[in-house]
């Protein structure tokens, strides 16, 4: 049942939708999930692969999270919810985690799902291919007393463990397919076998990935959708057009330029939801290379913070799809604190600080010349770099923009060959997982991206992060992380700009699209087209 929205232009669509709306309101209570329908979603760039772990690119996660499942999933407050694990217990000393697996769950090829698969995934598959979760699971000894029970033993308590068992951090893969093979070159990677609500059907290069319903799914009666098409459309304007005309019913993350989202929001046949990024908690910042002259001095970094109007960035660059970031930890995290120094937009203060440093403006008002390597991820980030150049220019810091492509950008940042650069990074569900790596001294590894490339080093911060990671008591961890946030913000380790709230845009008749912390990376078992 393809949506029959006629193509005669948006005015007709408005009329139809209005009628639909009225019906919807009336029959709300009685709305029963209806079965059937094809979901078309945009997906760009075309993912390199479709098995989580072997590839961690955002475009891989979207389709793959419908095929594979993790032991747990997380709600909007990042509280663990059951998935492949029906129930679980954590020992008081935080060293032993016991999971009781669901019975009668089968892989897409019909083979039964047992604890052997979990042990293989956590001890062999993930440490081998999954760079982010490798350190987490190297801490645990995993054993399977029987077919449906798995026990993790830790040497020392590890706070983030309970929040690292989702399908993205810990995908459960079929042991009978991967055991003993070269995981990266296993032919199954091209047509993966999972336990999830949708099975892989076909991948036409340059065109689409097609998933079909898994009729033998362990949640009876689910999924409601017949099949899902992920269509590769290279041009963002074309993607917006497809959404508007109903050829596509779902667009996620930065498929659609934020300026278009503001326009699409007003259309009656579309809904926009910015929730669902709690698990990822992406933050965008301006990184300064502390190994180089002007950035060493904290006053210069404070001047930069004062010179940037982060409200303008939120409203005119991200068109409101963002929240001003106050510090290194995302506001949706339980360990977040707003009790940190603030840097309102105050160019005069910035100039005062620069004068204090002895950087006097020359004949045409230039105090110092620096360069900025902007994130080359499309037109949105170009505008951000343009704004930073202009804003800093007003306080006498002349910025030269260094255009580059992704490979050049990654290469120069990893090798510290840059003055300033803009980027964004997911801080994940736990500071120990996604935040510490950017600030602790021992994670300064030349040539490796997303490490402590800014060169910030503060023994006190290192100590606090180490302690917080091992502390089993959540309240104690919050206290430690609050101290760390105060130091980092006062030190302006980075010029945090905004917390990103990527919009998910979907057809008004699509229900349960964003209903937990994983957002669009949920397995869509509960998604359905309302009649």
């Amino acid at each position, binding site marked *: 049942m393809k949506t029959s929205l006629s193509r005669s232009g948006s005015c007709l669509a408005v009329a139809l939708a209005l009628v639909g709306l009225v019906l919807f309101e009336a029959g709300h209570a009685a709305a029963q999930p209806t079965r059937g329908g094809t979901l078309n979603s945009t997906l760009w760039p075309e993912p390199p692969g479709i098995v989580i772990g072997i590839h961690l690119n955002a475009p891989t996660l979207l389709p793959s999270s419908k095929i594979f499942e993790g032991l747990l999933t997380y709600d909007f407050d990042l509280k663990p919810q059951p998935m492949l694990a029906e129930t679980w217990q954590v020992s008081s000393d935080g060293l032993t985690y016991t999971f009781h697996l669901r019975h009668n769950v089968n892989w897409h090829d019909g083979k039964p799902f047992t604890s052997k698969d979990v042990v293989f995934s956590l001890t062999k598959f993930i440490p081998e291919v999954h760079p982010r979760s490798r350190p987490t699971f190297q801490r645990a000894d995993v054993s399977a007393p029987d077919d449906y029970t798995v026990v993790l033993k830790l040497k020392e308590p590890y706070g983030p463990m309970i929040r690292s068992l989702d399908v993205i951090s810990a995908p459960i893969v079929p042991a009978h397919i991967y055991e003993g093979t070269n995981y990266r070159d296993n032919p199954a990677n091209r047509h993966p076998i999972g336990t999830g609500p949708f099975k892989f059907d076909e991948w036409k290069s340059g065109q689409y990935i097609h998933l079909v319903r898994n009729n033998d799914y362990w949640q009876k009666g689910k999924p409601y959708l017949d099949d899902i098409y992920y269509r590769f459309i290279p*041009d*963002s*304007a074309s993607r*917006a*057009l497809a959404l508007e005309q109903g050829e596509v019913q779902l667009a996620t993350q930065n498929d659609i*330029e934020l*300026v*278009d989202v503001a*326009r699409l929001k007003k259309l009656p046949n579309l809904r926009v939801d910015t929730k669902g990024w709690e698990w990822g908690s992406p933050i965008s910042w301006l990184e300064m290379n502390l190994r180089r002259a002007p950035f060493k001095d904290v006053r210069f970094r404070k001047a930069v913070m004062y010179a940037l109007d982060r409200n303008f960035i939120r409203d*005119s660059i991200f068109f409101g799809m963002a929240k001003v970031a106050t510090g290194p930890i995302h506001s949706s995290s339980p360990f977040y604190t707003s009790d940190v120094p603030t840097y309102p937009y105050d160019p005069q203060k910035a100039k005062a600080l620069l004068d204090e440093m002895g950087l006097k403006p020359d004949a045409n008002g230039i105090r110092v010349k620096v360069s900025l390597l*902007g994130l*080359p991820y*499309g*037109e949105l980030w*170009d*505008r951000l*770099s*343009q*704004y930073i*150049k*202009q804003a800093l220019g007003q306080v006498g810091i002349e910025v*030269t*923009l*260094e*255009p*580059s*492509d992704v*490979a*050049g950008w990654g290469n120069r940042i990893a090798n510290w060959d840059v003055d300033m650069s803009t980027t964004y990074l997911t801080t994940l569900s736990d500071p120990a997982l996604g935040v510490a790596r950017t600030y602790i001294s021992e994670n300064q590894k030349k040539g490796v991206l997303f490490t402590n490339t800014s060169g910030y080093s503060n023994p006190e911060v290192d100590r606090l992060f180490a302690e917080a990671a091992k502390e089993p008591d959540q309240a104690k961890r919050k206290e430690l992380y609050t101290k760390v946030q105060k130091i980092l913000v006062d030190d302006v380790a980075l010029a945090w700009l905004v917390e990103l709230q990527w919009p998910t845009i979907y057809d008004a008749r699509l229900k349960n699209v964003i209903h937990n912390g994983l957002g669009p990376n949920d397995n869509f078992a509960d998604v359905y087209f309302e009649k």
Partner: protein
Amino acid sequence: MRRILRRVMQNRGAVAGGVVLAVILVCAVAAPLIAPGDPMATRGRPLLPPGGQFPFGTDMLGRDVLAGIVHGARISLLIGVMSTFAAVLIGVTVGAIAGFFGGWVDEVLVRFTEFFQTIPSFVFAILLVAIMRPGLASIIIAIAVVTWPPIARLARSEFMSIRHREFVEAAVLSGVSQGRIIVTEVLPNAASPLIVVSSLMVATAILTESALSFLGLGDPNHISWGYMVGAARTVFRQAWWLSVFPGLAIALTVLAINLVGEGLNDALNPHLKGRIGA
């Protein structure tokens, strides 16, 4: 020269092209006077439609589109002229040597030129820009490296034909050195077709720059028409003026250059202007 000018004037198209080109050149030269200040600076609210304070509207950062077009003229023309100049320089040198000396020199240089043609020219330009870090200089070099082969082929055929003309042989008999012969005897006579082709190449260079910017390889530090159309692509639907005005500017300039080129062509080699009817 007056004779050539008079003949160019007769061609209506060339005159129209000349006028438009003159206007654009004035914009390029007197940009700071027409639209003072930095065209990249925010002036008003973003995405204002044309009219009132901003006759061409504002872009997503609130920058004045008119200022962008006026300053953009300078960069686009600069790219067009510089890359063509470089391409003509390489092309004519290679073509002249191959055409004039012939023999194995000719064979080697022809093979070398042919090699450049096997690589898809636009992909090669993108590769060069990526290698040399996107920026004005790399765009100019990339376009030049990709567009010199046709000029080399033309120069080679011109030099080959003129080399056998009797006045060149007379110069050889008079003991004039080969270098001087190339400069004083052959080059002036080979100039007219080269001038016409290079005028068309300026137009193509501007188009290539706009395509590169469209694919995100423009130089963000300098505002150019290609960059403006490229940046406007995402809001193509609701802010039509962001891409229409720069697009028109590109089209008009390329049109004008072509008309002038065509006028030059008719003037320099009049027999080409022939007729079919008896």
